[in-house]
Every structure is written in C-alpha cells, then in structure tokens.
C-alpha cells in the first residue's frame, strides 16, 4: 500500500468510525442522518482505496443520494424536533455494556493485529486484463459468477417491500365490507347455537 493510499485509508476509516458512532449516539434524528451521510461518504472513500471505483460511485448515488435523502424526508415529516428520550437504563447496566462491548472490540483488534489477508487472484477478462472494480468486472461478478445470490437478493428485497406494505397498509373498503359480512355471519351462527343450547337445556329441565 502506497503512502498516499495509506493516508486516505486512515482518514476515511477514522471518519467512517466517527460517522457510525454519531449515527447511533446522537439524540436528534436529523443529526443522526447527517452522521450517517458522513459514514457513507467515508465508506465510499474506503472502497476507492480498494480500487472498487464503480462500487464507490454506486455507494454515493444510492446511499448518499437516495437513502439518506429519504431518511431526511421522513424525519421532516415526523418533525425534526422529535428527540429520543434519554436512556432509561441505570448507570451500572450502561457501564457493563461498555465493558462487554470494549472487551469484544479489544479481542477482535488483538486477533487482527499482524494479520495479513491472503492474496487472491484478480478478476480477469478473456483478454487477461485486470477488470476488478470496473463496470465489466461488476457485470461478470454479478451476472455470471453470483447469478444465484443476485436472484435471491431480489426475493429478499421483495419480501421487505411486501412486509412494509403488510404493516403500513390499512383495509380497503372492499376488504372492510367482507369483514363486516363475516362478522354478521358469525353473530347469526352464535345466535343459532345459543337458541339450540337453550332448547336443549329446556328439554333437560322438563
């Protein structure tokens, strides 16, 4: 890794961590959204250090351009003044979670120190050129190598959309009509059953 690349890595990596902490720690939703934006941009810069230029551009377009904007819209809709109530947990619980989280982080860092990732063969096209990170490379990776996971992701996105609709949508008038009809049927049924029961009881009584 060249020096300039290393500096870019340090700066963008640091900013990504700052952004991530800001996202979960800030009480004002709008600030959290802006911190998320910082994190996403820093992540795009990290992709650049890995020579994944297309991925970096897509990251900016999709996440920074579309998703964070959507978040901000929603926050504005709810009201930007909305604030998260302060953490109701006691000091001891918070301290404990800090200790546990810190020790996990320390262990992972310890495991990572001095580790060099294995060298993998580069993705090459038929002419033997290195196509990693280019549009061509992305196309080969998604539509030739990882075709099955790619199709499965569409199922994952579909189920997320349907789930969102299932939770958010209210009944249509037609559905409401069916519900009312069914309720009436059940009330009729119950009345008939009650009458039957009363008749039977009367018979036993006499």
């Amino acid at each position, binding site marked *: 890794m060249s020096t300039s690349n290393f500096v870019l890595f340090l700066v963008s990596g640091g900013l990504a961590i700052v952004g991530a902490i800001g996202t979960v720690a800030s009480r004002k939703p709008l600030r959290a959204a802006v911190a998320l934006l910082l994190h996403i941009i820093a992540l795009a810069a990290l992709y650049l250090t890995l020579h994944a230029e297309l991925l970096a551009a897509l990251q900016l377009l999709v996440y920074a351009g579309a998703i964070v904007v959507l978040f901000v819209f929603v926050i504005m809709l709810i009201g930007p003044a909305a604030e998260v109530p302060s953490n109701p947990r006691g000091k001891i619980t918070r301290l404990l979670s800090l200790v546990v989280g810190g020790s996990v982080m320390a*262990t*992972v860092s*310890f*495991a*990572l120190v001095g*580790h060099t*990732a*294995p*060298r*993998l063969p580069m993705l090459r096209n038929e002419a033997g050129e290195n196509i990693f990170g280019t549009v061509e490379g992305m196309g080969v990776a998604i539509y*030739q*190598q*990882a*075709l*099955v*996971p790619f*199709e*499965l*992701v569409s*199922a*994952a996105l*579909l*189920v*997320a959309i*349907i*789930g*969102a*609709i*299932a*939770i*958010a*949508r209210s*009944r*249509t008038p*037609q*559905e409401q*009509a*069916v*519900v009312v009809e*069914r*309720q009436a049927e*059940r009330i009729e*049924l*119950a009345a008939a059953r009650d009458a039957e029961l009363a008749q039977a009881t009367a018979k036993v009584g006499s």
Partner: protein
Amino acid sequence: MSVWMLVSPLLMLGLGGLLVMLVDAFVDEKAELPILTAILLAVAGGVAAAGIVNYDNVALAGAPEYLTRYLAFDRFALFFDVVVCGGAALSALLAGGYLREHDLERGEFYILIIYAALGAMVLGHAIDLLTIFIGLETMSLGAYAMVAFRRTSARAVEGAVKYFLLGSFAAAILLFGSALLYGATGHTDLAGIGEAIEGGNASIKLVLMAMFMMIVGLAFKVSAVPFHMWTPDAYEGAVTPATTFMSVAVKSAAFAVMVRVLLTVFGDDLSASAASGWPPVIAGLAAITMVYGNLAAIGQSSVKRMLAYSSVAHAGYAMVGVVAAFRVEEIAVSSVLFYLMAYTVGNVLTFGALIWFGSNGREAVSYEDLAGAGRRHPLVALPFVIGVLTLMGFPPTAGFFAKYYVFNAAVQAGGGMIWLAIIGVLSSAVGAYYYLRVIVFLFMKEPQPGAPIAIPMRSGYVAFVMIIAGYFVMKMGITPGPYLDLAMSAAEQFVS
C-alpha cells in the same frame, strides 16, 4: 433426471409467490388464498421429497457451476425443503382459519409465508457465506413483518420491534464473523474455508473470533439461552399462525445452517473436540437452554407464552444432538433432523389446537381460558392433548422418539456428553409439569363464574391441519423407522 428437479422447489416458491400476488390483486376479497398457498408449498415439498427418494437417479454431475457454487443439492438440503415446506403449508392453512375468524385476513400474509419459506429453504441449501446471509435475511424480514402483522395491537408491535432490533444485531454479528472468516482464509464457500482451516492456513485467533460470532448469530436464530430474550414477546405478540411458522420453519432452517457451518467450516480436529472449539460452547448453551427454558415455562400464566419458552427448551434438546455430531456425526445429525421433523408436526398440532379454541375475535391465550373447555368440546381438545404429549415426549408420540434419538446420540458420543443427556432427561421431566397442566385445565377445572368461555371456531382449514399433523405425530411415534431412515440418508450423504 436432471438437477433442475432438485432446484424446482425453490423456483416454484419464487415464481409461485408472484402468482399468488397476482391472484390476490385480481380476484375479490373472499378468495381462498390459504388453499392456493398451501397447495403451492405442498407441491414444492412433495417435489423435494420425490427428489430424495429418486436421488440416485439425479445427474448431479451435469449441474451448472453457477448453481452448485452457492447452493448444495444434497439430501440434507432436500430434507429441510420438505420440513420447511410442510411447516409453512400447515401454517398457511392455520392462517386461513385464524385470520378470518379474527378479522385480520389480508393477502399479504400468505405471500410473506411463501417468501419467508423460500428464504428458509435457501438456508438449507446454502454452502456459501453469501447465500447464507441472503437466505437468513429473506427469512427474517418475512418473519419480522409477520410478527407485526396485527399492527393495531401494542403487544404485536412491541414483539416485532424487539425481534427486529435484536435480529438485526444478530445478523450483523453473523456478518462480522463471516467477514473475519473471509479475511482469515480468502474463501466464502464453506468447503473452501473448512479446507483452509484444516490445512492450517488460517490465523487461529481470527478463526476463533469468527466461530464465536457465527455461534452467537445462529444461537439467536434458534433462540438459545441467553439469546432468547426476544422469543416470548415475539411469539406472544404475533398472530398465532405466524408464531407457528416461526417456531417450525425458521427454527429448522437455523438448525440446518448451524449443523452445516459447524461441521463443514469448523470440522477440523482443533475446532471440533471435547476440550476445544465449538462442542464445549454448544454443550454449555444447550444445558442452560434446556434448564432455563423449562424453568421459565413453569411460571407462565399464558399458554402461548408457555409454548414460547417450551420452544426455547426444545432448541436446547436439538442442540444436544448438534454437539454430539462432533464425535458420532451420522447418528447425531440424523437425530437432529428427526427431532426437527417431529417437533414441526408436534408444534403445528399444539399451536393449531390453541388457534382452534379461539373464535370471533377472542383468542384462547391463558390457562384460565381453557378451563373446562376439554369437557365441553372433547373433539377439539383431543389434538391439544396429543400435541402437549408429543412436546412432552410421551410415548407413543413422535416427540418421544425425537428426544430418545437425541439423548441416545449424546450417550453414544460418551464422555461429558452423558451429563448433557442426563440434564436433558431431568429438564424434560420438569417440562411435564407445565404440559400436563394444560390437560388438567382442559378437563379438570371449571371456568371462574362470570369468566368468558372459550368457544372453538368452525373452520375446515384448522380441522384439516389438525388431522394431518395429528396423523404424522402418531405415525412417527408408532413407526418411526421410515422417518429415521429418511433422516439417516440425509445425514449420511451430508457427513461423507
């Protein structure tokens, strides 16, 4: 036969889900979507079953590389196709009775079941970290939405939010573990990672961290103690058919991944031994899960919540089989498979009976609701009795042999595992208390004066599910042989 026959259950659910969506959009609101969904799932499960039977005739060698690189089409995966599709089909039929009776009927629920089942099946087939994660997310997103389906209920929303937040953390931890594995070995396919670890080409520190994180993520999904916190709330808040689906299909698929990951990735001598690696960890988790699940279930006044804790305890029993797999692979894996199959039909039966006792917007939830109901409606109470008996492990039901095989596997493994079997037997004896309590309330108690009386719903769907599930519970209890052979053949091929 070409390999596409083995792929077709997945394709059927993927395309069939779209079909059900179209049907839902164009027909009127009274359409019989539950039947359509159940037929779709049953056909997919049937094709998978046919695939297992005719497995030797399948030309696997000609399978395209892009397919076999990410998904395995072995008997193990097909076995989980059958279990997941069966559980999902029965849950869909239960939903047909339940949602209608409680005025919640909306087509989205069936589509969620189909796609969540697709995710669960992908988990059974997955042999790459990428497909594991995608399958897990597909399944979990469906399950989160199903829990929140009754959005006007504060309980459902609370359960769904807890499940969603904790589930996202668990998925993130699993992903972290996957990233560490990739960083340590340079592979994302399970076999490749396993080889690299076995060959000593991976940093042990990283592999251990990764193992720890994968176990945490998977233990969450099977709701093992201490990662079970979401289970009672999500199970209680969800509409009961969703609870059924979660407790059978989601749990089975999570076990499929657990077995495959532990045995293929961490199958080397260092990671899988009595003193180091995952067996001691899973054994500890299994022990506290069995003990805590059963003890916590005793204190519940709600039957639904009790069943949630009982499903925690059952995850513990199944994990006993998973641990034993490090020494007696075949026997242990087949016992886990048999356990999941028996647990699926037993749980569908019990939750279905609970559903049957609710009508007209009023669900039977607590023990008090059930008081005397068995004497008023003996026919409706019969599946309930069989259901709790099989969950308890009472012979001659499926649950008895399921427990027997799992504990037998532990005994065969020997060493400290025998203690695990003893803890299992003792804690299932504790479990008898709260299972029998259901029967006591059904037949020997009278409702409090003035208390509302549980009236069973009239639903052909629920009655049909009770017959099917009851049949299999008894059949697997009286002649477990063929089912055990099926589990054996699935385990055999997977192990070798």
